[in-house]
């Protein structure tokens, strides 16, 4: 295990005061803070190496190209992939859109179904809604139970026809139900699911679900939205069972403006480009062009070179901590937070959401303070220097299915401590007093 105090020293922003208090940053699920080494890698690049990649024969360009290649290798090694399978994007949303536009439009037909879950962030929901609306395919959504876990088995309902519900609006057909009921007819062509819920922290049983799906639809393509997964636990694409994964660099200590799409080489090689322009072409004539090999085919235009180099430094930082240690650290934090918060729940002060078993839960703590709107709760916490997110967390259908318009969410990362959780709990007690 790593020394959290030493880790904290690597993050300059943690020395900041907010409204006269020490910053307690509990919003890493939205974006993480950046260690000195990441900031320095980008600063060094701009000071000493800045030049565009690929196109230059001069020294600086050669060096820049080398640094981007090196970062690509680091990211690839980090998730057990081959470098050419790593495509740099702006963020996970762009990665998912790339799959939708490039793979989805050529492969999803009217008679197919696209399967997702109710846990999805809007970025893994809205692209598929639009694809299904365009193609006429059915969008199927695995429902969640009261703890925010995916419903796998059909429930004991007498009339088997009620195992799933159908909604039709603006030309889109949506079916909501248990996994079992949604895969029975073998029509699922694409399964896109989150690895860890950004709201409730739910970690779905990916392996179990994939086995069930592949039994009914052997050729289904699998996408994992790994935005809340890759920053927090060891991910190896060789054993994950996915064909694509999407994640953001800025949620894993890297700079904003960086995201990653990983795809299997065999699939990526057959896909058409998503964006057209410089650097993604083979040969260009006035009447048309051929496409570059992967990954260049999917990286039109000048990329965020400094950002990619910064992301490489972030991977180094995480590798140095060890991803198993990162997961252990967060498990301890969420376990402790749930223990402390359960006491407040027993007192009728808060309502907690999400699985109680920490083996099935990442470092996200969703809650509401009874009788206080989440924005008000978050603002009172801010006045004590605590940064939490409030609202629908880009997952409106999920949040509203718990019968509330919004939730407060605290998310933990490598630099958070039990002391900070104690402070959070003590300040949550102050919230109702403000509105009393």
């Amino acid at each position, binding site marked *: 295990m790593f020394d959290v105090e030493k880790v904290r020293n690597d993050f300059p922003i943690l020395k900041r005061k907010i409204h006269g208090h020490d910053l307690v940053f509990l919003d890493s699920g939205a974006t993480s803070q950046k260690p000195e080494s990441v900031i320095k890698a980008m600063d060094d690049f701009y000071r000493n190496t800045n030049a565009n990649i690929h196109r230059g024969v001069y020294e600086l360009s050669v060096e820049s190209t080398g640094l981007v290649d090196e970062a690509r290798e680091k990211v690839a090694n980090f998730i057990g992939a081959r470098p050419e399978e790593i495509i740099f994007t702006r963020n996970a949303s762009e990665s998912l859109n790339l799959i939708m536009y490039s793979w989805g439009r050529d492969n999803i037909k009217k008679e197919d179904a696209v399967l997702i879950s109710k846990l999805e962030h809007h970025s893994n929901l809205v692209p598929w809604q639009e694809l299904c609306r365009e193609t006429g395919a059915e969008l199927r959504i695995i429902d969640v139970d009261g703890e925010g876990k995916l419903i796998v088995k059909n429930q004991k309902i007498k009339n088997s026809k009620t195992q799933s519900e159908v909604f039709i609006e603006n030309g889109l057909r949506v079916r909501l139900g248990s996994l079992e009921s949604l895969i029975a007819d073998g029509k699922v062509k694409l399964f896109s699911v989150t690895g860890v819920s950004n709201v409730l922290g739910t970690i779905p049983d990916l392996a179990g679900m994939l086995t069930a799906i592949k039994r009914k639809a052997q050729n289904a393509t699998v996408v994992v939205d790994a935005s809340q997964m890759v920053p927090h636990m060891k991910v190896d694409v060789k054993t994950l069972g996915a064909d694509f994964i999407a994640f953001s660099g800025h949620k894993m200590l890297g700079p904003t403006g960086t995201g990653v799409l990983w795809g299997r080489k065999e699939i990526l090689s057959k896909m058409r480009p998503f964006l057209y322009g410089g650097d993604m072409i083979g040969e260009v004539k006035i009447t048309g062009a051929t496409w570059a090999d992967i990954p260049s085919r999917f990286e039109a235009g000048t990329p965020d070179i400094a950002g990619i180099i910064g992301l490489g430094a972030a991977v180094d930082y995480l590798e140095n901590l060890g991803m198993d240690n990162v997961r252990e650290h967060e498990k301890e934090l969420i376990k402790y937070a749930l223990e402390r918060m359960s006491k407040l729940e027993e007192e009728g002060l808060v309502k907690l959401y999400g699985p109680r078993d920490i083996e099935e839960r990442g470092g996200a703590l969703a809650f509401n303070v009874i009788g206080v*709107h989440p924005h008000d709760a978050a603002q009172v916490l801010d006045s004590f220097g605590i940064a939490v997110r409030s609202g629908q967390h880009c997952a409106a259908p999920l949040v509203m299915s718990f019968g509330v318009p919004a939730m407060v969410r605290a998310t933990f990362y490598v630099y958070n401590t039990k002391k900070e959780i104690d402070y959070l709990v003590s300040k949550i007690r102050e919230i109702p007093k403000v509105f009393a």
Partner: protein
Amino acid sequence: MSDYKDIIIDHYKNPRNFGSLDDADINMDESNASCGDMIQIQVKIGTRKEPGLPRSVRNEDEVIKEMKWRGVGCAISTAAASMLSEKIVGMSKKELEDFGENGIVEMLGGEVNAGRMKCATLAFRGLLKIFETHE
């Protein structure tokens, strides 16, 4: 807690003009998509003819005569809707536009953090839409 002045807490706990109108001229729903807050505004509209003025200078602008509202929201959006429901009586579209977001901030005690402006202006945006649809 500078953002929660007494006046905000007062209007939050005892919202004015909360309810509905049976004979409303216009109904309008407005929401904040990212936080799930929504408000339903109902108004009666009339013209302002101030007695005693010569006919040529009477203001024929349409003004809000009465406003009732309902909704779910935070302390800031609730207090802002409550205060605005009193302020709006007799206001024309131009006067509301002139009042603007600055007027809302003033009304709430002079300080609203930028992250809460969407809450503070929820009812205001609904009222602007009311004038737009009525044109």
